[in-house]
């Protein structure tokens, strides 16, 4: 009898939820692991592990100053982003020189969003340049060159003192003015709801 009830309950559950292939259709036959794929070696991981966390985890050895970065910028960046980081609309964003007095981006779409007034983490500058820049030869800058051009941009934005070297220790400590303005999504997530937010 108990078995029958269990069966009936199982049938009810089955018919109640739509047949959703996301559910594991193997049921109790599903193995703990399928045993597919192969173990990743330390060198496999190192070859692709290029992300950088805001606390500096992932930053490589090396360092660079704004003076060194000016040279890198002129040869690798200026052709698209302009001699002074002013950008070329619409494809190549302005990097530096946005107004820093207010944070009125919601009210005024014309305010340029630059590293100094909009980027919440200095580590992202390094991580993005290392990941994707320059557009025509991503990955071509050395760690020193990447630190240097990062320092150049941060110094142009007045975020680091003149002559300061950027490295794995100093970069995560750079205070970014925009940081406190960022908030997590408040649109009620996947639960949704009727309210327009």
């Amino acid at each position, binding site marked *: 009898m108990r078995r029958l009830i269990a069966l009936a309950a199982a049938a009810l559950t089955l018919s109640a939820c739509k047949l959703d*292939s*996301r559910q*594991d259709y*193997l049921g109790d036959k599903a193995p703990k*692991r*399928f045993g*597919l*794929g192969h*173990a*990743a070696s330390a060198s*496999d*991981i190192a070859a*692709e*592990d*290029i*992300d*950088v*966390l*805001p606390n500096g985890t992932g930053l490589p050895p090396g360092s660079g100053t704004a003076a060194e970065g000016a040279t890198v910028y002129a*040869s*690798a960046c200026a*052709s*698209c982003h302009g001699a002074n980081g002013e950008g*070329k609309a*619409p*494809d*190549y964003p302005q990097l530096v020189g946005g107004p820093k007095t207010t*944070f009125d981006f*919601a*009210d*005024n779409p014309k305010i340029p969003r630059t*590293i100094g007034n*909009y*980027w*919440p*983490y200095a*580590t*992202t500058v390094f991580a*993005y340049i290392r*990941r*994707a820049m320059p*557009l*025509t*030869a*991503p990955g071509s800058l050395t760690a020193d060159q990447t630190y240097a051009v990062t320092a150049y941009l941060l110094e142009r934005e007045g975020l680091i003192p003149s002559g300061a070297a950027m490295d794995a220790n100093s970069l995560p400590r750079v205070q970014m003015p925009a940081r406190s*303005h*960022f*908030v*997590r*999504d*408040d*649109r009620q*997530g*996947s639960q*949704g*709801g*009727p*309210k*327009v*937010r």
Partner: protein
Amino acid sequence: MTDTASPITRRSLLAGAAAAAGGALLAGLPAAGAQQPVVPAVPHAPADPTAAPGAPTTAVGSRSPFVDPRRAPVGQITGTALTPLQDLNGSITPADLHFTRIHDGIPTIDPATHTLLIHGLVDHPMEFTVDDLKRFPSVTRVHFVECSGNGRQAYRAPTPNMTPQQVEGMTSNSEWVGVPVATLFNEVGVHHDAEWFLAEGRDASRLARSVPVSKGRDDALVVYAQNGEPLRPEQGFPIRLLLPGFEGNMNVKWLRRIKLGTSPFMTRWETSKYTDPLPGGKERMFSFEMDAKSIITSPAYPQRITPGWWPVRGLAWSGRGRINRVDVSVDGGHTWLEAQLLGSILSKAHVRFEYPWQWTGNESLLMSRAVDDHGYVQPTMKQLLAVRGPGTDYHFNPIRAWRVARDGTVTFEGRT
């Protein structure tokens, strides 16, 4: 080099790479929107197709010479080619017309050597080949992918002669086949303290986004097929991440790596881009779900209609679930009437709507309004701007309008 009117082509890119290798970097990358005008060949059909045998069979089909749907604009390595919504019926987007957003070109990847690395906070750091991924139990799902910048151009620079493609063409809908991310998480043994994962592509921008582990356990997929065939290169061949209902940018193409961590990785695409300014000096980040939206695809510019019956047709979708209802107005939103939903109404997927309308020759303003299964009603432009301010244009989902003039011309009404 100075600004050039021609877009970046593969050839100019190779020239640029050669120049870069020589020590000087390519300057003067393309101006947006520059394209060669397309001159279609005039199709010819015999007066009586029954009078003689037709053409023989072919290995790969092609469209009738009488139809020519095209993505636009094209030719860029950083840019978006939009889906010609006005040329399509039903709810599935042909794979070769799925909108394409790329950040540094479309990579050519050999599926025999491509691997997906999963590491970080896991028991077993693993690499999976594409063949490995195909051996896991698979799922088949229909979902839309929409760029969160869809609609911004029609907001920032509306003109009467914008087509549905130009207004909302950064959304497309496909049947996808792949393996649940949850299955892969189980295979590698994701640690309990892992809250976020980084998904990264094997393109030249190595695009990367942070995704909550909860989404991975819910309905995220690593997909390898689209509408019955392997993914197209511009859609991520051989594999892409599919996060149903989440903004397009997160659905990382050419997926090469997933790294589990405790906190978001704060990539450029989730900080300086894809964040939404709000009144009061706030900046919304990690706004993943695409809110409910709809657009009328016919009648629309550049159609010209005559008095009589015209079905008002369009698409509706919600990143949070199913579409419950679509209302249509022909009088600029004074009165609304429920449209019919056609075909299957699936979660986080396009659904086609249709409303039978008899145009009497008076000036009309056509609008559509989607309602999803959370009771969310697609807002007016005014409602949206009131809560977000004019500076926000990601996740931009206002009710759209088409003006029908007395002479039957239909134009986009950007200021509603």
